[in-house]
């Protein structure tokens, strides 16, 4: 098990009902972690979701390490 800090934004924040949390998880990748969170929070279906690990864009298959900070990024809509 590893400790992962997760920060939520936009629709994910609204659905999770919190800004951030630290989770003890067996997930090996962001993909697995997102599936785990989705079971808990039942996020709305998104066209796409990207991920950032430690404030840099990363692949959904990147191995997660203990202490990583993860942010899932729904489709952006700035401007």
């Amino acid at each position, binding site marked *: 098990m590893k400790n992962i800090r997760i920060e939520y934004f936009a*629709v994910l924040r609204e659905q999770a009902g919190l800004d951030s949390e630290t989770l003890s998880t067996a997930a090996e990748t962001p993909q697995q972690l997102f599936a785990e969170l989705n079971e808990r929070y039942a996020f709305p279906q998104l066209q796409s979701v990207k991920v950032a690990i430690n404030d840099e864009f990363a692949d959904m298959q990147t191995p997660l390490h203990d202490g990583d900070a993860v942010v899932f990024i729904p489709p952006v809509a*700035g401007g």
Partner: protein
Amino acid sequence: MLQFAIQDADLQPDQWRQELLDPACGGYASFEGWVRNHNDGEDVLRLEYQAYAALALKEGQRILAEAAEKFPIAHAKCVHRTGALEIGGMAVWVGVSGGHRDECFQACRYIIDEVKHRVPVWKKEHYRNGDSGWVNCEACAAGGDHDNGHRHD
């Protein structure tokens, strides 16, 4: 000077324009994104912007560096607003100065296009009919297809 910023207070283009002045520059192009009173057939009352600041600042800065590499500009600055905005409010500002108008226009357009697609900022629209929704979020906004890249200015 290449500078990307995010702020929760009103944008100040008149002030930032001064930072881009340069006696070697013959042109200055700028763009402002304003909150419209309608979108996708819905009357919009106000908007709310949220940013993943740590990554947004990095990605924004990368976009400005790309613009300066692609086009021979002198200076570029872009600032994105977060928080609540009323109709007519300014959500984003881009300013570019350079030797000639061609590179200024091209870089300014490149920056705003990339910022809209790549910088982690989200907006929630509040409609007259009481609904609200995060733009580009399929399941939460009324009216469906939010996959049209030209709809959100």
